[in-house]
C-alpha cells in the first residue's frame, strides 16, 4: 500500500471565507443579471461593472498589506472568481488579478490600467492570442529569460470569439520594463499562469453551477408523458452527474488554492488538475443543461446558451495542450 500523509480534509468555508463568498455572490447577483452579460457582447467587458468591482478591492485584496493589499488569500480569490463565473460577469478578473499579483511579486507598482498576461513566450514580430488584451494595453510576458511589462498606447484589436471575451492578437511593443530575469522570471511567470488557470477553473465551476440551476428549474416544471421530465432517470442522471462533477471540481479548486497559499510549490500539479477537472465539468455540464432544456436550450434567448458558449469560450483562451503531460512528468519525477 501507498503510505499516507495525515492532513485535515476540510473544504468547509470558515466565517471569513463565507463572508467573502456571500458578499460577492450578492454583488454579482445584483449587478450582473443576464441582461448585463448580453449587453456586453461581443467584447465581453462592462466597464461600469469592472469599476465597481475594483472599488470592492478585488484587484489588490490578496496582496500583502505592504503592497497595498488586504492580506487576502488565494482562497478568497477563488471564491470571488466562482461567484463571477456563476453570473458570467464580463470582467477581466483572472487576468488583472494575476497580473497585479505578479507585479507585486516583482516589486513593481501597479498602474491604474487593466493589465493582463501573455501565456506563451513573447517573440518580437510574432503575434499570440492573449486573454483580455483587447481591453488591456499593459501586458506582462516572458521574453527570452526576462519577465517584461509591455505598455502599449492602447489595447490590441478585439477578435470575435465564441465566449465573447476580450481576446486579441498581441505582440510585444517597444515600451518595455523588465520585471525580473533569469530563472526567477520564468518561475514568476509560471506561477502567474498557474494562478490564472486556477482562477479560471474557479470561474468555470461557478459557471457550471449557475447553468445547472437553470437546468434543474426547467425539468422540475416541464412535463412529458404525464410526468415531470425531471422524474425520468434519463433526464435526472446527467443532471446528477453534473452536480457530482461540480462538487469534484470545486473541492479540487479549493485544495489547489489552499496549497498554493499555505504550501506553495509542494503540489505544483494541482492548479493544472483543477483546470482540467473544471473545464471538463463545464463542457459536460453546460451541454447537459442545454440538452435538458430541449430545443429551447439551443436558442439564443435561453440564458443557458450564454453559459454554454462561455464553457469553452473561457477555457480555450489559454494553451493547455501540454498540461497533462506536465502533470504526468511531475508525478514521475516525484518517484525519485
Amino acid at each position, binding site marked *: 500500500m501507498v503510505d499516507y500523509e495525515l492532513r485535515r480534509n476540510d473544504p468547509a468555508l470558515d466565517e471569513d471565507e463565507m463572508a467573502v463568498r456571500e458578499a460577492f455572490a450578492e454583488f454579482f447577483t445584483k449587478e450582473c443579471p443576464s441582461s448585463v452579460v448580453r449587453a456586453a457582447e461581443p467584447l465581453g467587458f462592462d466597464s461600469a461593472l469592472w469599476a465597481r468591482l475594483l472599488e470592492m478591492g478585488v484587484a489588490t485584496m490578496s496582496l500583502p498589506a505592504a503592497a497595498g493589499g488586504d492580506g487576502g488569500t488565494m482562497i478568497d480569490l477563488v471564491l470571488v472568481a466562482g461567484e463571477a463565473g456563476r453570473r458570467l460577469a464580463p470582467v477581466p478578473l483572472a487576468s488583472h488579478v494575476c497580473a497585479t499579483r505578479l507585479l507585486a511579486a516583482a516589486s513593481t507598482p501597479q498602474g491604474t490600467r487593466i493589465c493582463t498576461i501573455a501565456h506563451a513566450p513573447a517573440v518580437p514580430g510574432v503575434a499570440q492570442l492573449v486573454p483580455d488584451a483587447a481591453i488591456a494595453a499593459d501586458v506582462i510576458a516572458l521574453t527570452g529569460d526576462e519577465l517584461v511589462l509591455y505598455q502599449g498606447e492602447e489595447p490590441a484589436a478585439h477578435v470575435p470569439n465564441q465566449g465573447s471575451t476580450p481576446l486579441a492578437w498581441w505582440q510585444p511593443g517597444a515600451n518595455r520594463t523588465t520585471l525580473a530575469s533569469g530563472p526567477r522570471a520564468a518561475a514568476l511567470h509560471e506561477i502567474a499562469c498557474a494562478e490564472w488557470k486556477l482562477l479560471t477553473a474557479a470561474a468555470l465551476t461557478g459557471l457550471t453551477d449557475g447553468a445547472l440551476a437553470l437546468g434543474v428549474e426547467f425539468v422540475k416544471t416541464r412535463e412529458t408523458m404525464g410526468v415531470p421530465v425531471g422524474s425520468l432517470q434519463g433526464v435526472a442522471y446527467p443532471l446528477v452527474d453534473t452536480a457530482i462533477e461540480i462538487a469534484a471540481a470545486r473541492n479540487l479548486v479549493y485544495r489547489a488554492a489552499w496549497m498554493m497559499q499555505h504550501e506553495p510549490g509542494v503540489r505544483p500539479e494541482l492548479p493544472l488538475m483543477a483546470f482540467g477537472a473544471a473545464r471538463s465539468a463545464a463542457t459536460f455540464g453546460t451541454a447537459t443543461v442545454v440538452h435538458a432544456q430541449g*430545443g429551447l436550450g439551443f*436558442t439564443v434567448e435561453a440564458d443557458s446558451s450564454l453559459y454554454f458558449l462561455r464553457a469553452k469560450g473561457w*477555457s480555450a483562451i489559454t494553451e493547455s495542450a501540454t498540461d497533462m503531460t506536465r502533470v504526468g512528468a511531475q508525478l514521475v519525477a516525484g518517484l525519485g
Partner: protein
Amino acid sequence: MDFGLVELTPAQQAFQREARAFFDEIVTDEVLEEERETGAGFNLDVHLALAARGWLTPEWPVGEGGAGLDPVCCRILHLELVYHQVPRVTAATTRLVWQAAERYLADPRLRAEVKAGVANGTVRMCLGYTDPDGGSDVAGARLKAVRDGDEWVLNGAKTFTTGAQNCQYTFLVTRTDPERPKHRGLTMFLVPLDSPGVEIQAIRTFGGERTNMVYYDGVRVADRYRLGEVNEGWTVLRGPLDEEHGMAARDRLADLSMGQGFLRTLEPAFAAALTWAATPAADGTRPADDPAVLARLGQIATGYEAALGTPGPMGRVKGAETLIAKSAELIDLVGPQAVLQPGAPGLLGDGALDFAHRFAQGTTIYGGTVEVFRNIIAQHVLKLPRPSYPGAKQFLGRPR
C-alpha cells in the same frame, strides 16, 4: 459486405464534373455568407437553379420535373451538395413532407399541383410538429383544429418550424378530438402558410440556425388540405417520423449512419486541427511533434470512424454524441485559435472548430431527442420492457 470505391461510367464521370462546375458557379461566397448570417438553410436562387436541372427531385423522371438520375448520380449529387455546403434544410423538409402528401392528399388536382411545385422549386414545405412546451412528445400536440362546414379552424402555436419563412406549406399536427387517447385524436393538414391568421416569428439558435415559432390564430383551412382520415393523424405522421428515425431501408450507397449528416460537421473541424498540428511555430516546432498531440488526434479520429459505421437509430445517437464530445476535445487540444469566429485574423479552416462545437448541441434534439432514440433502441432492438407512464399509452411507438 462491400466498402469499395464505386467505378464511375464515363457518363457518371461527366455528371460529376458537371455538378461540381455547376455548384462552383452558383454557390458563391455571397451565398455562403448569407447562409452564415441568416441560418435559414435556404437560398431561393440556388433552390430554383437546382429545380431548373430537376435536381430537387433528381430520381424523378424528367417528364415529372426530375432529372431521371441513377442511384450513383443521385449519390454524387448528394455528396456535391454536402461538399459545397449548399443550404438545403428546406429542400430536405420539403422532400420529407412530400412523402406524406403524395400518399394522403385526397384531391388529385391539389396533389399534382404540389408535386409540380416540389420539383420546380415553387412549393416548399416545413414541419409543424412541436407545440410550445411540448418537447419530444409529438403525440401530445394540443394545437386545436375544429371543423366548420368544409373548413377547419386552427388555433394554437408550433415551435421549431424551421424554414417556415421560405415555405408555402407546413405539415401540421393538430388535435381534433381531445377526448380520445392522445394518439387517436390527431389529424394532419398541409396548411398554406399565406393563410390569414398565420404569424411567423424568428427564433435563432446558438448553432447559427434560424427556426420559427408559428402562431395560428383562427386560421381557416379547407378540408382538401387534410392528409389522411380525421383522427388518424398518427398514422400519417409516422411515415416521415420513421424516415427521420431511420427505420426505413437504405441502399448500399447511402450513409450507413443516420448521424452522418451531423458527423460531417466534424470533418472540416478535424481537418483544421490537423493543419494546425502540422503548422510550424516561429521556432520551427509543430504541435504534431508532440506524441501526446498525435495520440489525441488519433483518439478523436477513432471516435469519428467508429461513429461513421454505426447504423440506423444507433448511428443517430452515436453521431450526435460523438460530434459533441469530439468537437469539444478538438477545441481543448487546439486552444485559443479554435474559438475564433469568422472575421478574426488567424481563423483556422474558416472557423470550423467553433462552428462544430456550437452546431453539435442541436443534433441531440433534431427530429427527436437522443432519449427518444434510446427508448426506441431499448424497446425495438433490445426488446426491453416498455416503461409505463401515466400520460402515455404509447411512447412514439406503434399503437398497441
